[in-house]
């Protein structure tokens, strides 16, 4: 979130291309994004309020939202803790191989989600590298909500690290040194001086990972097992309603999911504004 603050005093009408640029931008945006998205609202599928309500209150649909929201929230929370650790170590310490560590953080951004899905399933299934260790302990990782959480953790971790890292880098060290001079221990300095500065970025990172997790499909479908009421996520339910040609039902599930996403987007925008203000 680099500084977006806008300093504008002089007039800018000397530069060419505003009319055509604006025209093309709005045209392309409408064609590729806005018109297609409006398909959900313009209701070509004959979705009535009654149908919407019966889909929205269907226990299987409600369960899928519970699974999606619950696992995404848990994954986001764990990512926030682990992401803070990673960001801290990458910003504050020097050690060999640091550049490669830093670059690898972005792997989940660059790796196709289907590949992440099959890889994680192989790791956590009964005879996988980690699954076979967990199995005798009675922990079922793949094909359970735990598996979904693990997949969403993989997808979400770069969001937290990349949000916290720049804030940590820009944070002034003066206050920490002052705290140390006044006799505060390192642990106390962290919680009273450093942590409060990081709160907005930690919340933003959590919200980004959470939002991504709710809509995520590719990395989850392989590891979740897709059992209705237990490990069926909301995006998968849209998919299976489409496969049964229940377009209206798919639209209803999607509308609620979209509403949740937009509320989160709004929240993230507010959080980012807050963290930018806090950073100044």
């Amino acid at each position, binding site marked *: 979130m680099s500084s977006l603050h806008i300093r504008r005093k002089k007039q800018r009408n000397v530069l060419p291309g505003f009319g055509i640029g604006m025209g093309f931008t709005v045209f392309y945006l409408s064609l590729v994004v806005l018109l297609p998205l409006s398909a959900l609202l313009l209701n070509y599928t004959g979705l009535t309020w009654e149908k919407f309500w019966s889909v929205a209150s269907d226990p299987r649909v409600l369960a899928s939202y519970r699974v999606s929201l619950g696992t995404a929230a848990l994954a986001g929370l764990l990512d926030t803790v682990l992401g803070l650790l990673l960001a801290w170590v990458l910003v504050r310490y020097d050690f060999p191989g640091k550049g490669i560590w830093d670059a690898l953080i972005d792997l989940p951004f660059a790796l196709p989600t289907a590949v992440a899905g099959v890889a994680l399933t192989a790791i956590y299934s009964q005879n996988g590298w980690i699954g076979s260790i967990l199995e005798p302990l009675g922990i079922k990782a793949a094909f359970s909500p735990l598996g979904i959480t693990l997949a969403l953790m993989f997808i979400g971790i770069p969001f937290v690290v990349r949000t916290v890292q720049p804030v940590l880098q820009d944070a002034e060290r003066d206050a920490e040194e002052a705290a140390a001079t006044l006799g505060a221990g*390192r642990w106390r300095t962290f919680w009273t001086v450093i942590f409060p500065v990081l709160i907005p970025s930690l919340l933003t990172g959590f919200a980004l990972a959470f939002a991504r997790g709710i809509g995520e499909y590719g990395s989850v479908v392989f590891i979740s097992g897709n059992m209705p009421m237990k490990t069926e996520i909301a*995006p998968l339910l849209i998919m299976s309603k489409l496969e049964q040609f229940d377009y209206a039902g798919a639209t209803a599930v999607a509308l609620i999911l979209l509403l949740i996403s937009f509320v989160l987007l709004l929240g993230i925008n507010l959080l980012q504004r807050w963290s930018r203000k806090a950073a100044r």
Partner: protein
Amino acid sequence: MAHGAVLTPLKSQKSNAAPAATEQRWVRWVLIGLAGLVLLWLIILPLAIVLSEALKKGWGVYIAALSDPDALSALRLTLLTAAITVPLNTIFGVVAAWTITKFRFKGKGLLVTLVDLPFAVSPVIGGLIFVLIFGRQGWLGPWLDSHDIKIIFALPGIILATLFITFPFVVKELIPLMEDQGTGEEEAAVTLGAKGWQVFWQVTLPNIKWGLLYGIILCNARAMGEFGAVSVVSGHIRGETNTLPLHVEILYNEYQFQASFAVSSLLLLLALVTLLLKNWFSRKSTH
């Protein structure tokens, strides 16, 4: 996404920090060790298992999986999709970023939010909306049917869904960059008599080229790797509408695990090359 700011060099904090304002040596190494374990567990393990599973039964099976006609046709479709969608979204990204950052106008905040929209939408919904419009029971379905035009379960649908999903990548990279650069250089060029395109090619483009490449490479990775949205519109017709990520799924569901991981390894390579280039470009763009 905050890629841009990440690689800015530290303000040599290390040297001017008083010794009291850092952790004890052992604490430092414990934290580094823990972070290493997290990285190993979350990132490196998935990377390693793809390679290990892909080569489980040897190179013969690996090569066979990759030279299978269905795999090759999936590769072709993936490359074709990226070759169409990435340039379109790149042109849009440059034009939109120019408009948004070089001029003042009402509703700019709204425009920036709308540009970001596809990031907030589940990929499955990104596919669903095109089925609702162009699908057999969709809005234009009957008309398309009677004119024998196929969009859903065909290439146009895959392109549309991919365009939607990868829409914000380039423009999101350029906006903060061009915002920081302001308009001073361009205005000077105009004052000196440069024409519109000259200003762009000779003043703006050299300033943004590394950031632009960075956006393009991310856009490309997503275009080649998109799964959810494409899965909805593709119809999974082998040899016809199957992209590489969908091919991974099909093989996996047929219990052809090694073949599935062999194809995955190709996409993993794409991801690693993307990371490599991405780091290179962002280092260039901050210098």
